[in-house]
């Protein structure tokens, strides 16, 4: 069989397994196994499978994954959500859009300690949504900005999605983390800018400002944000100055989160074990997918499909911008059926050689992937952020999806910005890791 028919066959096989409801990790393993059967020279698929997966899994760098998940699990159970609303609200009273900006800022802050966008959305919305509606803010705008800003959870490091990409693409976790800061800030500016413009047009949609506070009163309201801000600065500094590896950084983050939880009186034996077992479940789920993806990637490598595909795309003579445009559309479509992690591990094996050949940096492409995963989070029918807000607000899925649509397009704008100015993404990682 030629490569084209083998690729089609494998693709169809994988799709059937996924549609049949086979667990994603197992479906990837199975596809990798079938791919191995087409390789000339009789490779012992079973032994390759056992050896490579053990080698991939026993890695201390990967240990950053459960630790970052754990950190989010602990902080999620603290009072952070209330404190963020109280602490941020007084400062935003004068800007058009007023407290609506709490959504963006609080999600950005929580994104700096959490690696999951669904958890970020849920944590911030828990308090912000009822508070905003109570004050009479526009519901559509509140839901849309929460759905959009919640995706910052995976763009601003630490990020589970980034760790998964880094492992799948074999690039440094720290470099991807560092690359996420500036794009994270860009997305926040886009969101807040949109909120400002919208409120300048629809002046009647925001309630009157809250009573004025003195600077001292504002500071008093924000004092509970000090521990979390210190934690964020600390983790960033450790990453940026190269004091610690990503794994050590994550360990420090866990310890600091325990201190915050203990300070607030949320740390007891039950909460501790609950956070541990929650972390175990998320980690094992991801690790099975990563194991499957690793094996499929290896099997694909043996068949030579990715290389041939890369050469074919190269031969088309597309300019880099069109390639990114085509990939963006492909990922938007994929995002309507798959979750972010599956999207990354399913496609990296074939897309990365193509991207490298077109002259893109794999760290830059990681940020691109995170942005398209963010779009998937806010696009129906399976966008998890939409689902979270749908249940929290009691609105139907169409209402929430329409409300989030402007923020979906702002993410498309963000992709365009980082594609035209790749230096925005690469500046920080290059600064810390010159050469």
């Amino acid at each position, binding site marked *: 069989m030629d490569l084209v028919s083998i690729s089609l066959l494998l693709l169809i096989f994988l799709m059937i397994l996924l*549609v*049949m*409801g086979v*667990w*994603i*990790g*197992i479906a990837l*393993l199975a596809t990798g*196994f079938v791919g191995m059967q087409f390789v000339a020279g009789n490779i012992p698929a079973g*032994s390759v*499978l*056992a*050896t490579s*997966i*053990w080698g991939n*899994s*026993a890695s*201390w760098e*990967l*240990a950053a994954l*459960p*630790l970052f998940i*754990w950190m*989010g699990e602990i902080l999620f159970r603290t009072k952070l959500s209330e404190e963020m609303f109280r602490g941020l609200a007084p400062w935003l009273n004068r800007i058009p859009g007023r407290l609506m900006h709490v959504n963006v800022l609080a999600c950005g802050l929580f994104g700096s300690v959490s690696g*999951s966008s*669904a958890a970020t*959305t*849920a*944590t911030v919305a*828990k308090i912000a949504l009822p508070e905003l509606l109570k004050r009479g803010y526009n519901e559509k705008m509140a839901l849309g900005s929460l759905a959009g800003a919640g995706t910052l959870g995976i763009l601003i490091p630490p990020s*589970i999605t980034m760790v998964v990409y880094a492992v799948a693409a074999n690039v440094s976790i720290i470099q991807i983390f560092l690359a996420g800061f500036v794009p994270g800030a860009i997305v926040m500016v886009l969101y807040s800018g949109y909120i400002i413009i919208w409120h300048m047009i629809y002046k009647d949609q925001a309630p009157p400002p809250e009573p004025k506070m003195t600077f001292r009163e504002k500071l008093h309201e924000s004092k509970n944000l000090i521990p979390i801000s210190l934690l964020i600065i600390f983790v960033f500094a450790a990453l940026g100055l190269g004091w*610690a590896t990503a*794994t*050590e950084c*994550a*360990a420090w983050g*866990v310890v600091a989160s325990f201190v915050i939880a203990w300070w607030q009186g949320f740390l007891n034996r039950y909460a501790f*074990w609950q956070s*541990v077992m*929650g*972390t*175990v*479940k*998320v*980690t*094992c*789920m*991801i*690790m*099975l997918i990563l194991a499957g993806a690793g094996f499929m990637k290896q099997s694909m490598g043996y068949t030579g499909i990715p290389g041939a595909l890369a050469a074919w795309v190269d031969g088309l003579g597309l300019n880099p911008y069109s390639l990114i445009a085509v990939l963006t559309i492909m990922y938007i479509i994929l995002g309507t059926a*798959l*979750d972010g*992690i*599956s999207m990354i591990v399913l496609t990296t094996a074939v897309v990365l050689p193509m991207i490298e050949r077109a002259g893109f940096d794999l760290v830059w492409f990681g940020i691109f992937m995170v942005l398209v*995963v963010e779009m998937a989070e806010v696009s129906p*029918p399976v966008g*998890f952020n939409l*689902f*979270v807000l749908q*249940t929290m607000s009691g609105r139907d899925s169409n209402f929430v999806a329409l409300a989030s649509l402007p923020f979906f397009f702002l993410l498309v704008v963000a992709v365009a910005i980082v594609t035209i100015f790749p230096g925005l993404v690469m500046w920080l990682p290059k600064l810390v890791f010159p050469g």
Partner: protein
Amino acid sequence: MIRRTLDALYLAGGILAGIFLVIILVLMMALSLGRPLGLNIPAGDEFAAWSMAAMSFLGLAYTFKSGDMIRVGLVIDKFEGRKKQMIEIVALLIGLGFIAYFSWYATSFTYYSWLLNDRATGVVPVPLWIPQLSYCGGLILLGIALLDELIHVLMGGLPRYEKPKPTTAEEVIEQALQSAV
């Protein structure tokens, strides 16, 4: 009796995985704090790596049983009753087949480590079959859990690895946290 033993086994795997998570944290902190103090944990990063593998594999069955192993629900959620049951049986058969195959080779991989007396190349020459036990053990446990569910669904039971759709905001938040997306 069998039911209770099996459930206890899955939970034990999950708890062991949790203990390895705590070990990773302690090791990484010790490595990080020890460096400036000039204290060094022999082969600390290797122990962390093995703990990571042990955690990932030992918790698989527990994760599967709690319904946190993700799959694409877009199509299967549309079916109900008899058709849904058939789909579940096929998915379980495929899952069981591949996990059985995988555990077989993971076990033989560990067996050869033991037979050839493979040792870690680091400072502490730990026989490699010891950390690798978690690898084959965890996969076999997942295989048992899949077989357990297959028999249950074949007998007409509803799959126990499917989480009920969340209805309250609290449940949504809880599931959001577990989704990792």
